[in-house]
């Protein structure tokens, strides 16, 4: 088949079921990279990683290396991290600060906006037809930021960032609004993790309230025991985070999930976020100074467990976690987990959120260990032909003002992801 024009692959997803092939077929994976990850707005980084002109951070979008850099004019740009001469990476490592970029192969230099600055012995190009104007580092076709979160799209055309995010952007608003100074910054490192499963298997689990009591049986019991034995607040918090997966079907069935256009969705929180610890009361008081009592109650009362921005980013607004999902192969996915620090909040708020990351997102998480095992089992099992299709019909949904309402026991958000999948995959690219 001609991969660019063949759109029959969209028929592998119907409303309520998906063909097993979409999880394991390398040809379909390549198409997904082009048609979904090659078009959607993907999270690149946070503006706080590049506070000054010349600061840069490297990232990967749909397996392509890019650089997020703040220019001399203060604007944040996203460049392909590849020298226009012979293609070498121009920036290496995770990030840093430069006056200008220099390729370490033949010494070409580029300004912070990617424009070619100098070529050693440029005169050797005289009379060769070489066009200096075509030798800049290339900008990724589109880049934009939403309240400090920087996104880019590898496609020149498509909805703008605000339209892409749609009503789901309220989750990013809520994160920023929670900061007493009204600003967030990346702080406290990053977990880089690998999963031996297709990226979609991971996304299908994000609001799945029907798996917790089965998959996490090994940890929520020990979590409850540890919570009652804990002598200090941070240990109790971590144990309670683990124990919270022990909620029953009735409790999970009461958790609202909302599905938005383009595959996005969010889920109401089920973990206790408030605390009577002094640092938390201090935090609320600081937030009230900026927002007033009523607005503070509204901001803190908006509790989402997580929000999914299809296909590549998920946040836990309450605990300031940000996950970046990078498919590497049909059966291999990288997930990076960052923690955002609320500026102006007492130090222990960030420490609590770091503790949340350590408990839930660390490679050593006793919660995640069982999720990862199940994802692997799905990946290994799905290649069995069976009757060829996997079901997604559990639970109903009802139309709401900005999205479809369902619960954590419904697979409505999965069906919503696959409507987006079909829309992306049905268009040539």
């Amino acid at each position: 088949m001609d991969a660019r024009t063949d759109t029959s692959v969209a028929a592998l997803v119907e409303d309520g079921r998906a063909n097993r092939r979409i999880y394991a077929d390398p040809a379909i994976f390549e198409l997904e990279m082009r048609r979904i990850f090659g078009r959607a707005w993907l999270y690149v980084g946070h503006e706080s990683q590049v506070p000054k002109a010349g600061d840069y951070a490297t990232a990967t979008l749909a397996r392509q290396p890019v650089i997020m850099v703040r220019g001399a004019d203060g604007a944040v740009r996203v460049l392909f991290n590849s020298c226009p001469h012979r293609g070498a990476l121009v920036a290496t490592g995770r990030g840093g600060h430069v006056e200008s970029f220099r390729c370490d192969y033949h010494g070409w230099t580029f300004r912070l906006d990617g424009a070619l600055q100098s070529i050693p012995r440029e005169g050797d190009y005289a009379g060769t037809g070489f066009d200096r104007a075509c030798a800049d580092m290339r900008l990724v076709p589109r880049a934009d930021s939403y309240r400090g979160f920087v996104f880019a799209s590898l496609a020149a055309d498509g909805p703008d960032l605000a339209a892409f995010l749609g009503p789901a952007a309220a989750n990013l608003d809520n994160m920023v609004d929670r900061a007493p100074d009204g600003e967030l910054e990346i702080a406290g490192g990053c977990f880089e993790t690998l999963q031996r499963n297709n990226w979609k298997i991971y996304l299908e689990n994000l609001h799945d309230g029907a798996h917790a009591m089965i998959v996490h049986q090994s940890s929520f019991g020990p979590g409850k025991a540890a919570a009652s034995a804990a002598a200090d607040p941070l240990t109790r918090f971590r144990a309670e985070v683990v124990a919270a997966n022990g909620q029953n079907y009735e409790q999970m069935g009461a958790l609202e999930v909302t599905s938005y256009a383009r595959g996005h969705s969010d889920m109401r929180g089920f973990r206790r976020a408030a605390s009577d610890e002094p640092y938390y009361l201090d935090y609320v008081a600081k937030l009230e100074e900026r927002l007033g009592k009523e607005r503070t109650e509204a901001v803190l009362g908006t509790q989402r467990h997580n929000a999914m921005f299809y296909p590549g980013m998920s946040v836990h607004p309450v605990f300031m976690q940000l996950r970046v999902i990078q498919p590497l192969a049909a059966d291999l996915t990288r997930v990076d987990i960052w923690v955002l620090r609320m500026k102006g909040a007492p130090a222990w708020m960030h420490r609590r959120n770091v503790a949340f990351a350590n408990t839930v997102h660390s490679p050593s998480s006793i919660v995640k260990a069982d999720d990862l095992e199940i994802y692997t089992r799905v990946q290994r099992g799905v290649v069995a032909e069976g009757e060829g299709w996997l079901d997604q019909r559990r639970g109903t949904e009802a139309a709401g003002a900005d999205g479809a309402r369902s619960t954590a026991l419904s697979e409505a958000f999965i069906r919503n992801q696959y409507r987006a999948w079909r829309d992306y995959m049905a268009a040539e690219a």
Partner: protein
Amino acid sequence: MSTPGRAEVEQFLIEEAALLDRGAWEAWIALFTVDGWYWVPASPAQSDPFDHVSLFFENRPLMLMRAERLRHPRAHGVAAPIRTSRVVGNVQLVGGGDGGDILARSRFHMTEVQDNRQRVLAGTCIHRLAATDEGLRIRVKRVDLVNADTPHEAMQVFI
């Protein structure tokens, strides 16, 4: 007890590794003081376990929570058992810590096998040890993996 020398500390570290290789989690946790900590930083030269994420950062209640989960009959992640083999070496006493504690630095190699897959973890351990009437006890065990900040798959057992 009298202040132990390098040979006694090395013997202690070898026995500690043997408990981990046997999966004797509770016996291993009992080597820690009541207020002891187990820490595996997520970055090289990480100075702080509170404001920066860690691969492991656990006190005794949290270590016991992990041990209990590893024993749980429905711990799917260890349905295929994890087997490990550790080698401990290059043991050095690197000066006394606070209040007469012993600070020991050692190197380790740990081979881990699960479900036909094998991986090697290696690095440096710093043990802050207290000499008590019951023998040496761990106040802090810090494990600096050589690949602390590279992408990782699940780490279910203590290193």
